[in-house]
């Protein structure tokens, strides 16, 4: 059977400047910069684009003068990439543009960032926000498997050190960190210290997909979609995020497991074939549960697994190599999700400025997290499927 994404190539990626604050921008203006940068990376122009997907899809059609043009504004991050790929695979479009960005969103610093605060009637009165929601999941793993705060802190130190080494990261040269440094930072929502949590920043990014026959004339090395899928257990931040929500064999704590299995099946590969894992890292614990959910280690062994260097540079499965949302950038609700995919593409092109995994041919990228009851998984390859 022909692979469903055989004719879909990722031909352009771009990150704008990422910073704690970009005073010259709002979310759309920096997203446009990301989109145009990705087109430039591909050697394409707005005139080549016949579909826009994701954040600001409709606004981009107007701002770049693309009409008449397909627009799909309702998915973000990996689901947007999969929607873009489907547009090409089903002959609805030839070149699909995605831009994302966040700026000028987080102004009241006495509260946590606006996108972290759910307003649903059953959670708002208890002061829940993302760190607390995700802590409720992490606590169950600690209770069930004996996972320790040192193991969580080791994840945070590893990812933050990747950002420390990355000249494009907002927190470039802000380390290096040890697990003890993470544990010494102030407590936010037990067991998460400040440095176990993602940061907030501003920035944009973009990504361009094209039909495979366009790669003869595009400027960059194409990267291919090997498989992808999404899991959800319901709306985020409306009900208690209980680890055991869902069927016993597939609890919500392992959200993304079904999606990963499906993605691996589409790709015809398994976890042992993955060279680098660009895992979404809203909180340190999320890496531990994802390593288990996707089959990089057995259930309950994610804590010990991260202690001996396997997820760091030179390890068997390096994770979140640009510094992720903890250190590279976290600009709101969309850009940082697409940035997992962009980093995966950079790894497979061999173009990373830091923490390049030598000879990487397969990357697993993820979005979402257990506390939000959804996870999206995307497998990328350097070879056409």
């Amino acid at each position, binding site marked *: 059977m022909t692979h469903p994404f055989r004719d879909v190539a990722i031909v352009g990626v771009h990150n704008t400047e990422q910073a704690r604050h970009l005073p010259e921008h709002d979310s759309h203006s920096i997203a446009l910069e990301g989109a145009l940068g990705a087109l430039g990376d591909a050697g394409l122009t707005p005139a080549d684009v016949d579909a826009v997907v994701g954040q600001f899809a409709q606004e981009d059609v107007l701002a770049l003068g693309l009409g008449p043009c397909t627009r799909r504004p309702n998915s973000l991050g990996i689901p947007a990439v999969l929607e873009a790929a489907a547009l090409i695979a089903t002959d609805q479009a030839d070149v699909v543009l995605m831009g994302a960005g966040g700026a000028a969103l987080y102004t009241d610093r006495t509260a946590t960032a606006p996108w972290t605060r759910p307003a649903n009637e059953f959670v708002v009165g208890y002061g829940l*926000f993302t*760190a607390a929601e995700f802590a409720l999941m992490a606590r169950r793993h600690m209770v069930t498997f004996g996972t320790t705060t040192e193991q969580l802190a080791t994840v945070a130190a590893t990812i933050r050190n990747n950002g420390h080494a990355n000249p494009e990261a907002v927190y470039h040269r802000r380390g290096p960190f040890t697990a003890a440094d993470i544990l010494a930072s102030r407590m936010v*929502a037990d067991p998460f210290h400040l440095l176990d949590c993602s940061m907030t920043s501003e920035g944009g990014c973009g990504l361009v997909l094209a039909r495979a026959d366009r790669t003869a004339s595009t400027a960059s090395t194409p990267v291919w979609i090997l498989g992808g899928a999404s899991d959800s257990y319901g709306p985020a931040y409306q009900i208690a995020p209980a680890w055991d929500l869902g069927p016993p064999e597939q609890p919500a704590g392992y959200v993304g497991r079904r999606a990963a299995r499906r993605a691996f099946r589409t790709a015809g590969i398994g976890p042992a074939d993955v060279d680098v894992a660009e895992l979404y890292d809203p909180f340190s614990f999320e890496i531990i549960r994802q390593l288990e959910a996707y089959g990089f280690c057995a259930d309950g062994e994610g804590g010990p697994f991260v202690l001996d260097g396997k997820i760091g540079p030179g390890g068997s499965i390096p994770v979140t190599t640009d510094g992720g949302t903890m250190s590279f950038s976290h600009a709101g609700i969309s850009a940082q999700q697409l940035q997992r995919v962009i980093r995966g593409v950079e790894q497979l092109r061999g173009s990373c400025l830091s923490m390049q995994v030598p000879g990487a041919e397969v990357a697993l990228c993820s979005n979402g997290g257990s506390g939000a009851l959804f996870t999206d998984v995307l497998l990328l390859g350097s070879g056409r499927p």
Partner: protein
Amino acid sequence: MTLLPQSEGIPAPNPGRWSAPYWDGCRHGELRFQRCDLCGAINPKPGVLCHRCHRRALTWERAGGGGILYSWTVVWRPQHPSFGVPYAPAIVELDEGFRVMSAMVGCEPDELEAGMAVEAEFHPVSPTITLPYFRPRQR
């Protein structure tokens, strides 16, 4: 540093289309939930259809208020400055067999333990909204 209920002034719940009986119950010191008359399932949030058998036969019942602590966190950086810290969002597994989002009060943060017996208590946080909290069960 005993965990306390929050005071008026926090961002208060804005009840949805189907939850009025739940919030009415809280004002009367009752924890209410919807059970399906046909299959017996308890709905995860107020609605019209049973989430298990997808039929329209939900009836409000009163929970006893007892349960065990399933998971919790202790928050030191409040999501909004109107919240007093520390506070302890918690998931409680009720004796009736379903889990609710709440917060622990009436004990020290380091007394919280998975599986500890808890019971509901109620505190108003606005003129119209009373929130259920949980405290360690009195023996």
